[in-house]
Structures are given as structure tokens and as C-alpha cells.
């Protein structure tokens, strides 16, 4: 089984639209949406949820206000400014302490040092993971709660479940929709992948972000290829990107022209190749064939 991860550096370059078309073109793949804090692939593939699991990313501290003596040790040891002097009064003190769950990093240091054992440190649910069926094959996706910690851990969990699903269903390819950026969720989604496809656009921002993301995958030693989406918006920068890719040893596997039918397809909950034929569909088909060739 091979694993392809689609990322972009810059957001909004067309990752999800391309992954949806790949899903429609693939014959024997499992799909995974690893953009867990702004997932969109389900809007096109309309998954029917078959199984759900809670995602527990880590622990959080909570002060039992009735037991708090207001000593302030928790506030002193917390490095994340998560301890507030906002708790309700109790029979001992007029003001107790309180943990801001959004600021809590889940380190447990406050609970360890609380002499009154007034701090509970327990696992919390940070999101949900779904195993679904779509018209293009099985799909694993997730929803991270607002401010949910450990998006990287959830990404890793989505990939693990998707890989197990592929193995048990005899599927030979896993297609992963990644997130923008170069941080924690991106690192979690590309680690150990067989191939990374970076979807970029011919803008100075797109090119700048491509450079950073290619450095990341290079540093992690993951084979990387690039596709220039909406290439005809600025042919000059497209040429510069092609040169940059060449110098970085990154194969350019496709160029897709700007086409209003991409938005039209999204409005119809359809991938581009399901929605239309013509040049755009041919370009995506050619990209898909090149990616399959690179994976082999």
C-alpha cells in the first residue's frame, strides 16, 4: 500500500479540489482528510458515517473549587498563564483559582504541586474521528474541537485508522488531504509518506510558501513533487516556479489552468472530473497519471 499526501504551504491553492478529483479517478483507494481544523473534503464526497470514535488528545487540569485553599501554588508553577484568580468562593477563602481550558497546555504540573489535591488532571475529548463510505471509496475524517490541543496527534490517528482500513480492505493507495502551513499538523501528515504532492499557485506568496514547504519535506527526506494550479494567472511566475522546482530536485508533475468550473463543481458537490470534461479534466487526468507513475 502506498500513501500520497497533498499539501500546499499557502492555503487556498486547490488541495481539496484536486484530492476530490483524485478520489474520483482512483480505482482502489482509501481517502483521509487530515486538515482537521478546517476539513472540507466531506462537502464534495458526502460521506455516510459508518463508525465514530472519540479523540482524546491529552489531559487537562481542572480545579475543584470546594477543595481549593487559594494558596496560589498552581498559578506560580503554570507557564501558560492558564491559572486565573476567578474561581467562586468557598467556606475557606473568598476567592479560589480557576483553569482556563483554552490556555491549559495539559502538562499537569499544577496538579502535581497542589498540596490540597484540589486539581483533577484527566483525559478530555478533543474531537471526533469518523470512518465513512463515499461514492469514491472509504474515507476517514475528523473534527477537532475548537481550540482542541494536539491537532498533530489527531492527524496521526486519522492516518493510522485509514492505513488499517486500506490494509484490511485490500486497497493499494491512501490519498491524504493535508493542511496549509509547515507546522505541527503538516509535519504529522507527511511523516513517513511515500510521496508528497505540493499544490502551489503562480503568485509570489505561493512561491515563497512552496520554498518553505519543500525545505520541510527535504529536511524530512520525503519524496516530493509539485503541481502548479491556475498556472495561467501569471505565466512568468509559473516559469520561475518551474525553475525553482528543478533546482530543488522536485519534479513538476502537472499544470492546471484557471477555470471557473472548479467553483461550479464545488457548488454541485462534485469533483471537477465528475462535473466536467474539457481541458481542465484532461489536465487533472494527466496530473493523476504522473502522480501514479511517481508512486510506483
Amino acid at each position, binding site marked *: 500500500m502506498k500513501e500520497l499526501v497533498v499539501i*500546499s*504551504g*499557502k*492555503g*487556498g*491553492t486547490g488541495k*481539496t479540489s484536486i484530492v476530490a478529483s483524485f478520489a474520483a479517478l482512483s480505482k482502489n483507494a482509501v481517502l483521509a482528510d487530515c486538515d*482537521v*481544523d*478546517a476539513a*472540507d473534503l466531506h*462537502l464534495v464526497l458526502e460521506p455516510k458515517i459508518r463508525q465514530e470514535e472519540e479523540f482524546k488528545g*491529552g*489531559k487537562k487540569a481542572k480545579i475543584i473549587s470546594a477543595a481549593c485553599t487559594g494558596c496560589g501554588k498552581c498559578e506560580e*508553577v503554570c*507557564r*501558560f498563564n492558564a491559572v486565573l484568580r476567578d474561581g467562586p468562593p468557598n467556606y475557606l477563602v473568598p476567592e479560589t483559582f480557576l483553569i482556563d481550558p*483554552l490556555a491549559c*497546555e*495539559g*502538562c*499537569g*504540573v499544577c496538579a*502535581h*504541586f497542589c498540596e490540597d489535591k484540589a486539581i483533577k488532571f484527566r483525559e478530555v475529548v478533543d474531537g471526533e474521528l469518523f470512518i465513512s463510505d463515499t461514492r469514491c471509496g472509504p474515507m476517514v475524517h475528523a473534527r*477537532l474541537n*475548537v*481550540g*482542541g*490541543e494536539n*491537532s498533530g496527534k489527531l492527524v496521526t490517528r486519522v492516518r493510522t485508522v485509514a492505513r488499517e482500513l486500506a490494509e484490511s480492505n485490500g486497497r493499494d493507495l491512501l490519498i491524504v488531504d493535508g*493542511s*496549509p*502551513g*509547515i*507546522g*505541527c*499538523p*503538516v*509535519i504529522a501528515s507527511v511523516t513517513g509518506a511515500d510521496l508528497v504532492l505540493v499544490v502551489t*499557485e*503562480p*503568485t*509570489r*506568496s505561493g512561491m*515563497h*510558501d512552496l520554498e*518553505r*514547504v519543500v*525545505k*520541510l519535506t527535504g*529536511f524530512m527526506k520525503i519524496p516530493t513533487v509539485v503541481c502548479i494550479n491556475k498556472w495561467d*494567472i*501569471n505565466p512568468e*511566475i509559473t516559469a520561475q516556479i518551474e525553475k525553482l522546482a528543478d533546482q530543488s530536485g522536485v519534479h513538476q508533475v502537472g499544470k492546471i489552468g484557471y477555470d*471557473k468550473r472548479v*467553483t461550479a463543481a*464545488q*457548488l454541485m*458537490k462534485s469533483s471537477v472530473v465528475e462535473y466536467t470534461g474539457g481541458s481542465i479534466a484532461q489536465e487533472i487526468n494527466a496530473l493523476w497519471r504522473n502522480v501514479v507513475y511517481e508512486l510506483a
Partner: protein
Amino acid sequence: MKLAVASGKGGTGKTTIAVSLALALAGQGKVVTYADCDVEEPNGHIFLNPQVEQKKVVTVPVPQVEQELCTFCGECAEICQFGAIASLPETTLVYSDLCHSCGGCKLVCPTGAITEIGREVGYVEIGSAKNVRYVAGRLRIGEVQSPPLICEVKNHLDRQGINIIDAPPGTSCPVIEAVKDTDYVLLITEPTPFGFNDLKLAIGMLDILQLPFGVVINRADIGNDEVKRYCAMENIEVLLEIPDDRRIAEAYSRGIAAVTASPELTGKFVQLFKTITRPREKQLR
């Protein structure tokens, strides 16, 4: 004043709008700081061409074990929730990439064998571009901890003037770090199913943080009217609609700000700022 520009979905125009707003307000004689908090992929410098006067490396504290003082008791490994310390019978190993800098190991060590050294997470640049003050963070490639760097960028905001914070996309911890403690959040979206879905996620985040916000619809004529209908129904203010304009897109591709390419937008951004800052009841839904 601190004004954050955010979006759930990437590529909706956060940087375009943050930069244009900064330039439009500076053109009115206001004291404006543009702060790039999209530290994974910062792009503001492409449009502002700032003169960088100062570059500060940002580090987070990670443990270092003095093996001669260590009794291999394992308390440090036990308190660590992040798997960043392994205690073996004759050595204690630190995996500093996994460390969240909570300092717990140092506090529990009975022999004082743990001290802290800095791990570089990136750097902050401070400078100016014409009449806009410029601050930005750049995450070190391979680094996972962006919130401490975002926090450091925000430590360089201007206490008196107007600060425009360009936030990263999404709804998780880096975005929360960028938007928290701001006075108002501009949510940028586009009227497509992806844009609408991610807008709702971002609104859910701001409702929990209890921050006032309004919506800007970029490329307002490309999709459908779901975003507008939703905002009307939920009583959310749509502050500005920017039509899809090839001139703006081409200028963007070359690193030219929207207000430079389409000067008629300047007035709209000035008006947008007036709308945000007009006196009102605290606007929480």
C-alpha cells in the same frame, strides 16, 4: 487597538485585506502596525517590502540533564506528559523536539540536575514599510511549536496605535494565540461551500472566545449567497464585499497590494475601520 484578520479557510484574502487596511489607515495619518502572525507561511513582507531594522531569535526553554548530578530516579520522565524525557537505569535522555516547555521536570528533580537551555523556534523581525510599522514572526522549518513565536510577535505590538494582526488559517491553537486579547476580529471568507463551512467553524471559535467580529466576503460574486443568508439569519455584520477582480488577482500574484492596484478600494477600507470602531453596545451574540 488590536484588530485581527482571520479566516477558517486558507487563501481567502487575509493578507490582502490586512495589508490593504494597514496602508489605507496609514494614508489617513494614523499610526499603524502590521503584525504577521501567520508564522508558518508569513507573506505580508511580499506586499509591504519592509526595511527590517531588528531581528530577534525566539527560543523556548527545554531541559538539559547534568548526568553527574542525576540519580536516575525517573521523576522527570514521570511528570512529563509529552514523552520528552526518557529515564534509563544509567542515563536520562531528553527529546527536546517533543518538549512543551512546561518546566515540570526541572521543578520535580530532587538533585537539581536539570537546567534549561533555549531551543530556537524562529525569529521576530521588526521594521517599517513607508508609513506602516512592521512586525513578523518566521517559524524555523521543522519546528512544531508556533504559539510561543506568535506570542512574541504580539509582545511587539504598539500600545497606542492601531495594530492589524494577520492570523494563520484554521481554528486550532495558533489561531487562538493570534486572535486572543484582540478588540475585534475580521473574518475573511469567500462565498463557496468550502469558504462557508470554514467560516462557520471560525465563528464557533470566536463565540467560545467571546470576541466581537464581523465578516468580509472576498470574491463576493463567485459562488452562491449562502454566506450572506447565514450572516443575515445569525445577525452577523457583513462589513464589506469585494468583487472578484482580475486586476486585484494579477497585482496579488506580483506582490502588489490591492489598494495600490485598485486605489478606489482605499475609501472602502477606511469606511470599514470606521464601522468597526463606531461606538456600540458590546457586540456579542
